């Protein structure tokens, strides 16, 4: 298990290195001059030059990359060109709100998706299955920002029972989470349904029935437990997607998290912030994938890594 973990982690490190290089190359290809951005258009050329030198922008690209990675290993993600704040500090402050939002978005997906999955599986190929599946499909076909805006308008303004955007406690979470839940639940519904149908055809389910177990016991102890295995894997991947997809939700609901930070950074060509957030989100995705593998091993005894 440990060896497996170490192997997985070293694989993850390779992935992160790849991500850092590609990100670095890409953001440095952005046609905007950071030094000019920092000091503004009226600043004399000498000031621009001084800032350029300070940032090490006149060094060759590979050297810049090495410097960047060196600082990275010392926990220094650089300073935002726009906000003149340490990127690490800006990111750290936003991990919490984003994690909080992502968690609830995820919960909403599960809360909507999993019961529907069980329901459609138990009524597979019946009218009820088709209707519920179609509704779930409409959900994933909605652009999240469009739905978000409509919900925001209705439940924030027309019937003002929820806050009009902004980040904060549970009342701020409700609308974004529901929006995300609606637009993502169908993935779980679909996955759980097909997984349950498969498990329901397994021999060991027949064995359980042959032992005299009730339908409820069969469903919950034998079917759902096994059918959830792929859902767990997907859940991990999904949290990764959530971290990356949180941009739209945050922009729609004016939630001040990582997605918003990254998004404004891209709008402003704020290279250190882009680098930092992209790297962090990638680390998050990689870590969650890793975590899911571990959880998977814990709940599925067949997975033996050694």
């Amino acid at each position: 298990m440990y060896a497996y973990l170490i192997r997985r982690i070293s694989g993850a490190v390779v992935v992160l290195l790849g991500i850092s290089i590609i990100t670095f190359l890409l953001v440095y290809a952005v046609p905007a001059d950071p030094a000019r951005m920092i000091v503004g258009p009226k600043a004399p050329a000498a000031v621009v030059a001084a800032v350029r030198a300070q940032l090490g922008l006149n060094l060759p690209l590979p050297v810049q990359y090495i410097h960047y990675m060196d600082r990275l290993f010392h926990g220094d993600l650089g300073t935002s060109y726009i906000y003149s704040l340490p990127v690490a500090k800006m990111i750290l402050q936003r991990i919490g709100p984003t994690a909080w939002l992502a968690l609830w978005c995820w919960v909403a997906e599960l809360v909507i998706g999993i019961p529907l999955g069980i329901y459609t599986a138990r009524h597979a190929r019946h009218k009820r299955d088709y209707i519920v599946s179609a509704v779930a499909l409409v959900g994933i076909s909605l652009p999240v920002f469009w739905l978000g805006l409509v919900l925001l308008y209705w439940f924030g303004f027309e019937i003002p029972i929820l806050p009009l955007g902004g980040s904060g406690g549970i009342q701020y979470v409700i609308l974004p989470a529901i929006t995300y839940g609606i637009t993502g639940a169908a993935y779980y519904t679909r996955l759980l349904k097909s997984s349950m149908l498969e498990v329901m055809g397994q021999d060991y389910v027949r064995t359980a029935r042959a032992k005299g177990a009730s339908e409820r016991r069969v469903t919950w102890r034998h079917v759902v437990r096994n059918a959830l295995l792929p859902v767990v894997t997907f859940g991990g991947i999904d949290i990764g997607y959530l971290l990356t997809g949180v941009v739209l939700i945050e922009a729609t609901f004016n939630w001040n998290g990582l997605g918003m930070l990254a998004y404004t950074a891209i709008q402003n060509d704020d290279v250190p912030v882009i680098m930092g957030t992209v790297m962090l989100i990638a680390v998050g995705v990689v870590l969650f994938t890793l975590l899911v593998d571990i959880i998977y091993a814990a709940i599925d005894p067949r997975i033996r890594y050694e």
Partner: protein
Amino acid sequence: MSLSELDIKPSQPFAPTPMVAKKQQLKSLREFPMLYLGGFIVLVLIVVAIFAPVLAPHNPDAVFQNGLNANGTPIAPNWEFPLGTDSNGRDILSRVIFGSRVSLTVGVVSTLINLFIGVVVGLVSGYFGKWVDTVLMRAVDTILAFPFLLFAMALVAVLGPSLWNVLFAIGILGWGTMARVVRGQVLSLKEFDYVQAERALGASHGRIMFRIILPNVIGPVIVLATLNVGMNMLTEAGLSFLGIGIQPPQASWGNMIQQGMNTYAFAPWTLWFPGLALVIAVLGFNMMGDGLRDLLDPHNATR
């Protein structure tokens, strides 16, 4: 969010047999209502895209003198402009109709790029295994770990926003899932005796990969690709919403939604109609994909 590769279980050797066996059942609408409804929507979409110049009542880019109110606000739906006008005084119906071309092109072409890279990587990775597999799967991990939307934004920002750059960015970044699904299928298929038989007959690697294995993984790939089309259409809209999408005046539903957001408070139709068109189109592809999945699902054969 992209699709779950787990939706189509790679561990399960994909049995194409039921598909052929089901040919006679294709008549039965009741068996696969999703497939038919989705297919119908997609068909309508394609027809609309092809015959856009015939169907659209106006030139989509034409600015009408009577297309705006005196205070510069869009005109509500009426006989001349059935879906109203946008903030430039252009006919929304015509733009929605022409927008189908862009959305469809983005959805389909970017999916084809996904498909091409994903299938080749998955096939090579799964077939050759060993270090080839290790290297390629690291690449897939990398591509999947990227915050897709952010990265597409950055890429489009660098390349400059245009139709082709948008679909290139979506295409070049979105193949990870496809590669994983194909690889999983190949891993199980290559142990199948008919593949071994091919080797025993002395067939080359290329022949085995592309003539023997590829046709047998095509089922799940088609399902995934169909769902991907809808997904990529949504991604284009997302990029447009974030300000990096198809450049006007070329109408895409994404940039129409974005433009509509600026006027929706006093002209809600500018947001509603392009949004509705997008939802219906994406739904069509999703339904078709789900229907195909059901059709190809071996579990359904026994039920």
